[in-house]
């Protein structure tokens, strides 16, 4: 492929077969024999540290014992009972800092039990066979609106359906799944997110409404009127801007848009990628964008982060994986200017940074340029808060997140929220699932108490 000096963005940088291989399952599943060997390494700890390390509290030793005794159905029930998105979490969780990180087998001469891979083994068959493990409870007649079909919304909807409530789930996009469908690297979940969602919704009692965005097609006041409860799992719909010169040049785009396009692309040979890609940011989105650029055939992919590696949102394992994929990570540099020719990006100018005596990040004054055809911005997403509702009710927002109490109730009566739109500490799928699950329990408790007070129905 001939090189262009400027705006070298092209499709088909790699042969179709190689593209297919590059975006196949990054961690192939364990077969039965491999799973048995892995399961037999579990010590079946009492009050196991791995359970405590899991945000959804999956009883890991119990499900692993199920695998070891050929009780896959029981194992799957343990996992999905605690975490209805246990399938995707098995693929995308940073297990090295959660369950596997706390495994007692970690040591100088011993690796942790492969909990993630075992969880996948125990659950894969469920989605393959669309096996019904959970039943919808007896109809309560109560109606709940779930806004956002990401991990939090799906977990909430499923738990509410199990409890017998009538759930309507709305999402701004045309597919459910949220970041699992649009935002995670393709090779982590090839063809999986949609299958999992289909299985999850098959419990019944959940009406799916695509392309319905809050504020555009949906009105919070109307939702509150029409339902006994509303759950907001709207995630972070906006993207931070760099706010520097040149951001409007062609070749500059949001990493999440690039990833979403890739995830929805049916023919990777038609997907354009820059020859030299620069990614700004330090989270998993930055890592996923850089690696996928390389796997699409980018000659170089450089992540530039304004602080040191230890501060990156991406785990050490993700950083190591990126480096292994030929991604260059430049630390301690912040973007100052985007340089272009004839409206097209040619380079990004950075200033090196350091911490001053007070621990604040400051520029050193030294600058450098990285040549680029594509700049992917991955400096974080922001909440797009719903407008004040018609009745004058206003959702309390603090530090860019919807404020909820310990029962996931917002400041508006009858409105709950969970997932990234409330989350402060961890932008993890597994945390969003836990939020959705706990919010559902809270909603159920409230609705049932109301029923009891009203003498039923």
């Amino acid at each position: 492929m001939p090189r262009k000096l400027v705006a070298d963005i092209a499709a088909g940088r790699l042969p179709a077969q190689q593209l297919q291989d590059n975006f196949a399952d990054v961690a192939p599943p364990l077969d039965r024999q491999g799973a048995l060997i892995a399961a037999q390494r579990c010590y079946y700890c009492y009050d196991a540290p791995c359970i405590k390390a899991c945000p959804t509290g999956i009883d890991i030793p119990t499900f692993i014992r199920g695998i070891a005794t050929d009780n896959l159905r029981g194992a799957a029930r343990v996992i999905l009972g605690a975490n209805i998105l246990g399938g995707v979490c098995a693929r995308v969780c940073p297990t090295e800092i959660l369950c596997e990180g706390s495994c007692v087998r970690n040591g100088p001469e011993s690796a942790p039990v492969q909990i993630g891979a075992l969880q996948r083994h125990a659950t894969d068959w469920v989605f393959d066979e669309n096996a019904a493990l959970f039943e919808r409870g007896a109809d309560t007649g109560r109606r709940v609106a779930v806004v956002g079909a990401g991990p939090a919304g799906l977990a909430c909807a499923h738990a509410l359906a199990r409890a017998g409530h009538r759930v309507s789930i709305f999402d701004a996009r045309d597919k459910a799944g949220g970041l699992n469908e649009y935002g995670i690297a393709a090779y982590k979940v090839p063809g999986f997110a949609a299958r999992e969602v289909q299985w999850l919704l098959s419990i019944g009692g959940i009406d799916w409404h695509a392309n319905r965005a809050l504020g555009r097609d949906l009105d919070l006041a109307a939702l509150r009127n029409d339902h006994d409860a509303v759950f907001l799992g709207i995630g972070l719909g906006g993207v931070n801007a760099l706010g520097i010169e040149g951001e409007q040049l062609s070749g500059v785009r949001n990493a999440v848009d690039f990833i979403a396009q890739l995830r929805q692309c049916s023919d990777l040979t038609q997907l354009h990628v820059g020859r030299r890609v620069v990614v700004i940011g330090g989270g998993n989105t930055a890592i996923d964008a850089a690696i996928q650029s390389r796997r699409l055939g980018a000659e170089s992919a450089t992540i530039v982060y304004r602080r040191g590696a230890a501060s990156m949102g991406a785990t050490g394992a993700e950083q190591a994986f990126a480096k292994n994929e030929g991604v260059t990570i430049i630390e301690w540099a912040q973007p100052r200017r985007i340089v272009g020719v004839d409206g097209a990006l040619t380079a990004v100018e950075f200033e090196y940074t350091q911490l001053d005596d007070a621990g604040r990040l400051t520029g050193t004054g030294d600058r450098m340029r990285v040549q680029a055809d594509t700049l992917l911005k991955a400096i974080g997403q922001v909440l797009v808060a719903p407008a004040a509702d018609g009745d004058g009710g206003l959702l309390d927002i603090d530090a860019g997140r919807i404020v909820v109490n310990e029962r996931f109730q917002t400041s508006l009566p009858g409105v709950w929220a969970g997932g990234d739109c409330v989350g402060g500490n961890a932008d993890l799928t597994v945390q969003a699932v836990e939020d959705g699950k706990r919010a559902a329990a809270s909603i159920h408790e409230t609705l049932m108490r109301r029923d009891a007070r009203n003498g039923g129905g």
Partner: protein
Amino acid sequence: MADISCDFVGIRSPNPFWLASAPPTDKAYNVNRAFEAGWGGVVWKTLGFDPPVVNVSSRYGAVQWNGQRVAGLNNIELITDRPLQVNLDEIRQVKRDWPDRALVVSLMVPCDEASWKSILPLVEDTGADAVELNFGCPHGMSERGMGSAVGQVPEYVEQVARWVKQHSRLPCIVKLTPNITDIRHPARGAFKGGADAVSLINTINSITSIDLDLMAPTPTVDGKGTHGGYCGPAVRPIALAMVAEIARDPQTLGKPISAIGGIGTWRDAAEFIALGAGSVQVCTAAMHYGFRIVDDMISGLGEWMDSKGFRRLEDFRGRAIGNVTDWQFLNLNYDIKARIDQDKCIKCGLCHIACEDTAHQAILQQKNGVRHFEVVDAECVGCNLCMHVCPVDSCITMHRVDTKPAANWTTHPNNPLRKVEA
């Protein structure tokens, strides 16, 4: 290097490791390979009269435990299914080719004098070193009045041993079945009948598993299964106990024993020799890994003997017998406590939950609100359970704390039958 050569009732072999009568010793091809590999001797797979028996397809069932394959093995194979003369010819040739190795011939014929009288000269004529009477197999042959059907009746054992000694000059080893309440009785019978030695244990009557799809025992022969003979590592503790019982029985004290039952390493062999065994017989371990395992058995036994200063097998043979005693003679004042090495502890909690749920509530799981496992001496009875369940080698050890002089049940005040000291 220590001398591990072996002289068992006049049967000489360069080492005490014999292959037991079983499929590995079915024919010359296997036995030649075994001798090439270094085995000290073989007991040829059991001969019977023509026409030969017929064996079924699907013969073994195995127990897997937590990933360990063949922790126990069960077979429903009968005695040799080759014509008698073929076996005799091969035995003659093999003994001629390997004069320094032990070649014992296992026999099983109907329980009458004429049968035994007729087969013994044929075996003697091959130049074999000894005969082993198969009174053990719990499956198939027992339905025809042979195998364990004989071994379970001490009087039959004695009678057949007597016939064999009357009609043959060869050393006679009686192979005992463990499928009996008290192993000492058939052993006494064998020696009373004149047997030179006993060998044990033969396989234990067993069903390996039930196939829950076929709803039939394994191994399954066209939808049906039968009980078979169980062997392999899982049966070793049973074999040790039975060998020990015979070794310390006043009526059979010092009598030669060839030990069999789950032996697969030099250490297993040394344990049986410490209980008085003169030779050891191996089958399952060889069937699992091939004849080459004898290399480490020879090397390991010699190295261990060197490290202990034993120059010959006799130097340690039977050394443990005196320490096998009745419960009533154990020192009730002996007291040990578990100690958890906090540097080695990985905090899996297995010691705690084992003790808490099933023992003496002697291991705490927290200290100052932090996960921490520690023994409460006042509650610890020294049962060893925590030490056994701990997955970390040497993390939990037992330490002696008693100060009182030894005293046992025979004089204990709680014993209604105690002996009052004069």
